[in-house]
């Protein structure tokens, strides 16, 4: 029985993929790539359930650009001949998986939820039509899949897998170079790991009005997120605050959607939240089908009241 191969641009996410591989009852091999010494990365993924770690260190992999990275993954894949290969649904994972699949002439399932093995391949669920529907999809044979972040716990434990260094890696010539990188500023909001998120939608009439939501966020130690129109179309908040299918998938303990109607594109990004609160004027808004608590009413009247009440109750 051939195993599964996993790769992620983050070691933590790779550990989630290891858990998935073990759950499927397969032998799991992990690929680590880079341009320097890979022993730290290798150590991080040397956890229970991992049988082999494949390392490729090459100057061509210093920026993990798609071209050389796919070349490297292809070389490991052809050596291991796994049945399945899993990536994280990070932006990098989602640009690598399709290209590798096209090269290997095997199936590709992105954002695969509840992946399971069937007789011939993988079955998984995908949110489609803006999240209005769940498509059950199946591969006919070997496939690569990208798995949403935090869908599985991280594998743990200290294990001693085989470590195989691939020395003869030859990337195809590439014409792409990295000129620079602007990391997200330190201390900048990270909605992905936030415990409480208050999100703004089109119910806000102008950018300045977001101040009332920031007040509420301050009282709750929450971060402010937004729906796509506010980030992509209006630019009121940076793109990294966008919750949704084309933004970030979040899983906070509390999610408060304010003035968000609940386009499924948005719901998709927050439906794993533990508790969901919705505030909207339109009682028929889809968000009310997806909330635990809701208020039908004017956010401009409600938010200051809610902030005042919570401030009092929480003693802030």
């Amino acid at each position, binding site marked *: 029985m051939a195993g599964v191969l996993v790769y992620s641009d983050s070691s933590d996410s790779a550990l989630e993929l290891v858990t998935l591989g073990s759950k499927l009852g397969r032998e799991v091999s992990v690929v680590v790539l880079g341009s320097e010494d890979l022993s730290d990365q290798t150590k991080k993924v040397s956890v229970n359930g991992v049988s082999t770690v494949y390392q490729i260190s090459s100057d061509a992999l210093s*920026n993990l650009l*798609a*071209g050389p990275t796919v070349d490297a993954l292809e070389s490991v894949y052809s050596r291991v001949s796994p049945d399945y290969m899993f990536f994280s649904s*990070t932006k*990098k994972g989602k*640009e*690598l998986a*399709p*290209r590798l*699949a*096209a090269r290997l*002439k095997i*199936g*590709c399932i*992105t954002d695969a939820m509840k992946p399971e093995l069937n007789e011939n391949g993988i079955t998984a669920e995908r949110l*489609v*039509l*803006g999240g*209005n*529907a*769940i*498509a*059950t*999809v*199946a*591969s*006919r044979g070997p496939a690569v899949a990208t798995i949403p972040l935090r869908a599985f716990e991280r594998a743990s434990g200290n294990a001693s897998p085989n470590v195989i260094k691939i020395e003869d890696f030859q990337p195809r010539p*590439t*014409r*792409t170079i990295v000129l620079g*990188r*602007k*990391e997200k500023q330190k201390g900048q909001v990270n909605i992905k790991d936030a415990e*409480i998120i208050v999100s703004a939608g089109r119910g806000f009439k102008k950018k300045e009005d977001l101040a009332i939501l920031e007040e509420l966020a301050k009282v709750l130690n929450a971060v402010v997120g937004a729906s796509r129109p506010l980030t*992509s179309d209006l630019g009121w908040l940076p*793109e990294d605050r966008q919750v949704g299918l*084309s933004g970030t998938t979040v899983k906070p303990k*509390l999610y408060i959607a304010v003035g968000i109607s609940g*386009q499924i*594109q948005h719901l998709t990004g927050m439906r794993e939240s533990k*508790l969901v*609160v919705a505030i909207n004027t339109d009682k028929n808004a889809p968000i*009310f*089908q*997806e*909330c*635990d*608590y*809701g*208020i*039908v*009413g004017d956010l401009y*009247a*409600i938010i200051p*009241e*809610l902030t*005042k*009440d*919570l401030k009092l*109750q929480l003693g802030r």
Partner: protein
Amino acid sequence: MTQQPGTKEKKNPLEIIVCFKHVIDETELRIDRANNKINFEGAKTKISDDDKNAIEEAVRIKEKNGGIITVVCVGPADAKKSTKEALAMGCDRARLIVDPSFQDGDALSTAYILSQVVKKIGKFDLILTSTGTTDSYTGIVGPALAEYLDLPQLTYASKITISGNKLTVDRALDDGIETVECEIPALVTVSREINQPRFPTLIQIMSAGKKELLEWNAQTLGINPSVVGKADSKVEVKSLSVPKSARKKVIFEGKPEDAAKQLAEALLKEGAVK
């Protein structure tokens, strides 16, 4: 085959190919929750939202650098409406690819068909696609098309600059912005934030009808129907269902101050705020 860098005469206009998908407007779908069904009857269609950003970007690049834009759509016959819209937005000519054997294929199959379309078009410097389409959002077509054409892929572009043969792209990645450069030809997938698509004027809509719109099929492209569409798909859609929600759905109405108070109490009781 793709051109090699350097073979392009500098004076030649920039040749841009932009791909889009004609999709069901997911915001207007009627969902029959009781019967776990989606009602597709009379569903509206549109150019996929993110693909509009790709079309808009193609037009902006042309406005700045000059050039010719060929817009390509693989889809059903009624995609003609969307194709005309793309022409009205500023594309110069269109190739609408319709063939029964192309139906119900997976995204890799679509990418393969597009690669054959690009080869038939022949000359190009830049291919633009979106990062994903609003119907299925697989994000597969861009990278797979780049693979089939052996092109560099510059994904998640939030800014594109072309100067001579040099293409510079800001990529909006998970942890920041990466600026990359390569020589054309290349394939770029655009992020939503790259621009605001324009609304064509009435004059533009009228004149779109006069632009070249060719319909191609499997035969025109020399594609064997057994290697595309459902026949060759490596991933199949088995069923569609309506997501179920297990939320409490406790709704407070009435005066803002009362509703807010009830909500605050509920949140405290849940232990959701501390």
